[in-house]
């Protein structure tokens, strides 16, 4: 270019038409919004997360066919990725106290299994009886021996068979001498560490379908117990299946309720805004009252008032309560938009051309509020999910055994110290869902509404 006209910085345009041609295709509002959203990486990632959550909820149960209510009693409070080997043993028979050599103190007879731990000991010096303790942590200098399992007030009984809620882990057993009053003599005790092996009887293994049909099993064979990829909860229920079932409840409430009340708010707000005058004032005053109600208190009150009958899940009352209390924000917003749009020139022009009222609302007003409504919807979803989780957490949400992420967190918090995964897994899912919807809402707002765009 510079060779053609070296004396000029800018070359004059030859043809006038070319400069007036629009080089880019004209974009509709939604095409433009989509382009903007695609350029926003955070929003796009959030969109993918939302889609995968929906897949997890809808397709997940088809891929992982495990009953969320089934209790696997052999594997209770199992953390994710635990070993699930079990040895086949014979059916349980009460122990007659046989076996075990004399004179080696507190000892385990046979192999300690989840079926039974057989303990035998020699009389402690000066003991008129013995008490057996079991602890889950090593016995330290403060001599915390754990839970007392049994008292034997005659000095002659020197065996104990423990069958109390045994898990495959280390246990720390102690035997303490009792005096004539039956009080333990702290100074006179013996302790051992026992590693308990996971076992299952052949009958149980067959009943649970762990052994392929027609295959013979020998004692001491190992089988793999039912798989629980994310572990089990305190009742032995599969966490993954429960998280999926919980997602269905949480997302159904979290997406269903906002959709219904946003639609209601749009109808309410557009009618109020379009009619205007007295009716508008009256309708908005009513909305103001509902807004003034303390939200969570009334959610609780409504839940109490609805009551949950036996066998009901309580999902529907929660949905209704959410809709009743949350619609006014959308109604106010839409009304404001409609009032603003009503004064625009194109409405007047349309009216002059003879457009009817329903046509004006449906064709001109509502489509112009759609962007704002969509943004509101995305921001109301995390609020609804939060509310459901909060209510379920304080025991006012869905009724057990129906799982929701909130009620699962509530159950998980009780065993937080020993098996934190029961709390952490649903908590992570709630957080990710809320985070994704919040970021998606931010992105949608930036893409759809120029006026609300973030000043960043």
């Amino acid at each position, binding site marked *: 270019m510079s060779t053609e006209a070296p004396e000029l910085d800018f070359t004059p345009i030859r043809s006038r038409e070319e400069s007036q041609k629009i080089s880019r295709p004209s974009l509709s509002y939604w095409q433009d919004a989509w382009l903007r959203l695609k350029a926003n990486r955070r929003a796009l990632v959030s969109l993918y997360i939302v889609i995968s959550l929906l897949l997890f909820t809808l397709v997940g149960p088809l891929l992982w066919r495990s009953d969320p209510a089934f209790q696997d009693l052999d594997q209770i409070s199992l953390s994710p990725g635990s070993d699930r080997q079990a040895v086949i043993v014979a059916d349980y028979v009460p122990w007659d106290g046989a076996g075990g050599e004399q004179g080696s103190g507190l000892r385990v007879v046979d192999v300690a299994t989840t079926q039974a731990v057989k303990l035998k000991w020699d009389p402690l010096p000066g003991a008129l009886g013995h008490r057996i303790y079991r602890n889950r942590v090593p016995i330290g200098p403060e001599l915390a021996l754990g839970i007392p399992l049994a008292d034997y007030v005659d000095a002659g009984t020197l065996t104990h068979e423990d069958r109390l809620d045994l898990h495959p882990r280390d246990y720390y057993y102690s035997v303490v001498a009792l005096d004539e009053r039956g009080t333990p003599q702290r100074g006179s005790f013996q302790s051992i560490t026992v590693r308990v092996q996971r076992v299952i009887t052949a009958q149980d293994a067959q009943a649970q379908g762990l052994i392929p049909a027609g295959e013979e099993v020998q004692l001491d064979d190992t089988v793999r117990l039912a798989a629980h990829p994310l572990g089990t909860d305190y009742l032995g229920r599969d966490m993954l299946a429960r998280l999926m079932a919980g997602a269905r409840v949480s997302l159904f409430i979290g997406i269903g309720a906002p959709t219904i009340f946003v639609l209601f708010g749009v109808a309410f707000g557009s009618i109020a805004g379009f009619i205007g005058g007295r009716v508008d004032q009256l309708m908005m005053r009513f909305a103001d009252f509902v807004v003034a109600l303390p939200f969570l208190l009334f959610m609780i009150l409504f839940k109490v*008032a609805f009551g949950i009958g036996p066998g009901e899940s309580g999902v529907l009352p929660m949905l209704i309560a959410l809709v009743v209390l949350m619609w006014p924000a959308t109604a106010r917003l839409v009304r404001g938009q409609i009032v603003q749009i009503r004064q625009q020139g194109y409405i007047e022009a349309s009216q002059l051309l003879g457009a009817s009222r329903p046509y004006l609302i449906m064709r001109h007003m509502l489509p112009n509020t759609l962007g704002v409504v969509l943004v509101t919807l995305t921001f109301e979803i995390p609020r609804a999910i939060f509310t459901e989780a909060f209510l379920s957490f304080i025991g006012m949400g869905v009724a057990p055994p129906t799982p929701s992420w909130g009620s699962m*967190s509530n159950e998980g918090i009780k065993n937080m110290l020993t098996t934190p995964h029961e709390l952490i897994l649903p908590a992570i899912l709630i957080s990710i869902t809320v985070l994704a919807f919040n*970021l998606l809402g931010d992105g949608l707002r930036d893409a759809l509404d120029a006026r609300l765009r973030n000043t960043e």
Partner: protein
Amino acid sequence: MRWYVAKRILQGLVTVWFIATATFFAMHSVPGDPLLNDRAMSPEIRANLEAKYGLDQPLARQYLVYMGNLLRGDLGISFVHENQSVNDIIRERFPVSAILGILAIIIAAVGGVLWGALTALYRNRLPDYIIMFLVILGISVPSFVVAALSQLTLVTLNQAVGVSLLPVAGWGTVWHMLVPALVLGLSTMAYLTRLMRSSMLEIAHSDYVRTAKSKGLPPARIFTRHQLRNAILPVITVLGPQVAIITTGGFVVEMVFAIPGLGRFFVEAVQQLDYTVIMGTTVFYGAFLVFMVIVVDLLYGFIDPRISLQ
């Protein structure tokens, strides 16, 4: 001004009346008989109770009795806890919740303003990114999860050190209040940080900041005198509604940290279906929240003289 205050208070009273009425009718639509407890009740006691609450009378009459009692400040007697009136329960337990809430609000407000100012100062640099990431976490993680996890951390920490650095649960000393108040204020703090940041950035582009710059004021002085002071205004506006969030958030935090406040009592009452306590506490909390919003609105007029209270 005086008119405005009177009008707001009147509006507030009407709202409280609405809350009380809604509470009354919601509780009356509860299926079942609240007097049918698991303990057998002799007909005489039942008659006494019915007379006390006017349950043998038509609904309209019961409503009048209830409203009359409310006007006299009588919230009724607990169904579950013997010999305890709802007033006594509130008097005994609300101070605990109030202290916790005030502490949480202070932590949230101070933290929010500080972090927000910091992010604006370091805009689009590492401290900004780190703080904004934490803010998003604070908004997205439910309070009960934060409460439980911080308790878990505290237990692990205490075990690791071998001495009790901070109490894990309970109430009594300042040390007991520290972690619960922080947890309670966290989501509000995150929200305020975000608000403060955008408000600071908006003000950075305003005319008076440009004027101050062109006058040659040192940047530190512009920052503290002009930007910070003006940016705090929107933070104060949202403090009123945030009181409601802190109060209800207190339910969970008090539950997890075993704090004997009104929030935990309310949750227990809900679980035990202690009708009078639920009604009384709802009306009390409702009135309290309405009142707080009015107070903050009025305060706002004093702090920002440009807002004329009309």
